[in-house]
């Protein structure tokens, strides 16, 4: 199958918007659907990525009313190539969440509305699952592409850190944030990656390296990576491995020491950075504006910043604590060393083969089941997606099975800049496996 996108003319666009608005009232895939008539190849964009003239809220009340006057570099490049942005997709506030429930409007799984869509790029995954031949521009800091892609049954690529410009991305954690792509097959992802990747003078951390496609026939299963996984998930995954084995891949079980530390290291670094990124929201320049001008500025800022959601507040407080003089060495600097060490250890395997695992350690949970779990329980759900995210390794989540009507995703990791090898791998998978999509809105 060649890359295909949903192309609409102006008339078709209005029809599409109507359909989407209907579905959106139940699924909450979009924070904003653009009614301005346009034509082109339809894409959606996560709501933390700026599109000129369209609101960008990152699902936060503090940003309500913010309409960027500039395009993110990815959006610029896509628009120049005939893509049209239909809307901004729902997400956990600022990317803080694994289920898509840390938003004013909880995102629902398109296969069964009682279930979560996964987060934080929940809306991008839903949109991809319900719109014909859809592509969505998403973003991952610790697993925000893989997890929702897995729960919604679509392909989600998180590229090497720096492969896609972050210019126009509303920051969560700058050293970890990666813009990526969700789609319905590897070919269309490759088409879009060719457009959006590549160095950008507006983002210093974007890199000029060419993305490669070095095939590997070895699949590493990290045993200490896959412990604490739900038994059904593990059983299905074992079946997948036997299939790959019979397809000629060499499966090797290995252990990577101290991989357990990647979770705390990730949360320490991401919260420390997030707490500085959220300092700019002060309630008087853009977004939600406070009108109580009689207050002193300290009081004013305190009042304005009450508008953050619970998880955002938690991360500001923890992040600020972590950055404190007396704790910095204890946490932040240690986390940096752990990251460096884990990169080294994972890299030694990734030079030889891919690392494969389920994407999520659990079956898709119901919204009611996760509404009241503790933050630490929620953080631990990211255990499989965090190591590659912490280390900036490219990884992809692809659907490989359906359990009680809900999709299951597997995650493949490769070495820095070998992003296209992931798409190549998945394209081979797609030759023998037919994805089921929730809907075909056009």
């Amino acid at each position, binding site marked *: 199958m060649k890359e295909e996108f949903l192309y609409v003319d102006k008339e078709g666009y209005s029809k599409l918007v109507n359909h989407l608005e209907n579905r959106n009232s139940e699924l909450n895939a979009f924070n904003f659907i653009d009614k301005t008539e346009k034509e082109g190849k339809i894409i959606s964009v996560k709501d933390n990525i700026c599109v000129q003239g369209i609101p960008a809220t990152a699902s936060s009340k503090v940003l309500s009313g913010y309409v960027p006057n*500039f395009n*993110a570099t990815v959006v610029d490049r896509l628009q120049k190539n005939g893509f049209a942005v239909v809307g901004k997709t729902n997400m956990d506030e600022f990317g803080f969440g694994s289920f898509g429930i840390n938003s004013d409007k909880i995102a629902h799984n398109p296969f069964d509305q009682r279930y979560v869509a996964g987060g934080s790029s929940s809306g991008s995954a839903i949109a991809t699952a319900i719109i014909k031949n859809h592509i969505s521009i998403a973003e991952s800091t610790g697993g925000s592409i893989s997890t929702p892609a897995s729960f919604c049954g679509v392909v989600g690529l998180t590229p090497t850190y720096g492969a896609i410009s972050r*210019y126009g991305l509303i920051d969560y954690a700058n050293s970890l944030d990666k813009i990526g792509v969700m789609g319905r097959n590897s070919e269309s992802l490759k088409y879009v990656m060719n457009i959006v990747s590549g160095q950008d003078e507006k983002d210093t951390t974007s890199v000029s390296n060419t993305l490669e496609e070095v095939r590997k026939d070895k699949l590493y299963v990290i045993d200490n990576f896959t412990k604490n996984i739900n038994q059904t998930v593990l059983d299905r995954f074992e079946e997948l491995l036997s299939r790959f084995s019979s397809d000629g891949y060499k499966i090797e079980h290995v252990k990577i020491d101290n991989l357990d530390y990647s979770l705390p290291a990730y949360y320490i670094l991401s919260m420390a950075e997030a707490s*500085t990124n959220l*300092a700019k929201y002060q309630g008087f320049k853009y977004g939600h504006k406070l009108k109580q*001008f009689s207050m002193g*500025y300290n009081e004013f800022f305190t009042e304005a910043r009450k508008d953050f959601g619970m998880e955002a507040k938690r991360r500001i407080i923890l992040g600020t604590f972590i950055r*404190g*003089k007396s704790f910095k060495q204890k946490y932040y600097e240690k986390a940096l060393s752990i990251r460096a060490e884990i990169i080294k250890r994972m890299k030694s395997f990734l030079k030889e083969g891919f690392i494969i695992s389920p994407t999520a350690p659990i079956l898709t949970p119901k919204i009611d089941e996760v509404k009241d779990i503790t933050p630490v329980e929620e953080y631990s759900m990211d255990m499989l997606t965090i190591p590659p995210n912490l280390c900036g390794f490219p990884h992809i989540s692809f659907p490989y099975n359906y359990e009680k009507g809900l999709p299951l995703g597997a995650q493949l990791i490769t070495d820095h800049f070998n992003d296209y090898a992931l798409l190549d791998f998945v394209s081979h998978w797609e030759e023998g496996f037919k994805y089921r999509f929730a809907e075909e809105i056009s």
Partner: protein
Amino acid sequence: MKIGLEVHVALPTKTKLFCNDLAYENQDIPNSNVCPVCLGLPGSKPVLNKKALEISANIANSLNCKIPAKTSFVRKVYFYPDLPKGYQITQLDGAIGKEGYISIKNKKVGIRRVQIEEDPAKILREKDYSLIDFNRSGVPLNEIVTEPDIENLEELKELIKELRSILYYNGVDINQEIKSDLNISLAENRVEIKNVTGIKNLISAAEYEIQRQSQLIKDGKDVIMETRTYKEDTEETVSSREKETEEEYGFIFESDLTFYETSNIKLNKVVIPSKIAHELAEKNGYSEETIRELVMFNKRNLYLLSNTPKEDFSKAVALIEKFYSFGIMDYSDNQFEMMLKYDVSSMDKGTFMSRIEGKEPIKEADKKEIEEYLILTIKQDSTLQGREDEKAIGFLIGKLKQKYHMDSKEAKEIIEKTIKTQKVN
């Protein structure tokens, strides 16, 4: 007594530190030189101005600092309305310069750090509200932090002069209002005076504070560790009444930027004008003080004097002073060299100007012709005969100026001489 300084100077770049807005030109309309980056809009990212990095490395080098192989930035987080991102991008461990010094007369004053940072916006305080002008947001600064090695007011003045001179030679606009923080401790406790604007205020704040602390000590009272501000109108420092807690900025690596290699930065030859003044004084046996005055804040003078041979040196100094006294600033190297031929000490402006324009003094041979012309003129005009008054001489000066393009002084001399000779004859 221990005094330490933190000085902030704006760097001579065309554009701002992290975006392409103009840093200094066209600033009349508030908020006209702004963009998503310097407004701190969500989604924007900083990109380092390499020119600012180059200038900073050169300043650090002039201040004898160690320049690390790689330099990097941090976020300094605090809340103030003039700080659009809620943090300032600045430097700490990865600073462009560390462990340097400035030499003043009898000692070296340590430089702890030279760091690159962005200027916040400007707050315009009105009667019951404030306005913010983001034109200044993101202007490139260097913060230069000294060790508390300064031990008296004289050293402080000397250090400031020396530092400004070095900065001037690095292209920094020396007329800008330099903002400083000042630490002064006469006793155990350190007093910090924050945000002093301008050099005059800095000196007078230090003067007042030294006086205040000595008086407290004399009276047997404690000097409290505190932050104070300088009041320009009353010329005194007053307590800021801030809670004395240790500042907590939660510094963190700025990961929107990267590590910048310093090995490829072009470092210019270091020019320490006071040192050169000293050398010139030794070499030419001339007053060091005079040379310092001429070269500390004038690159041209330093260049001219450095290239003057010993035998012409005092003439060159006199010539520069003459140029000053006549307010002539735009003379060429050739003109300077040409003027060295003359004894300019008693030259009036007119003669001086005609020499600059290349007019030679009247030659003896020509004088004879002029004298003859004068005699003839007087002979032919009966109203001029026997007169030595101003009006008659003025008339003759006019004639000579017209015919021989002489300047007034020269013409007058030759007229008076001719009349005198005629009388004797």
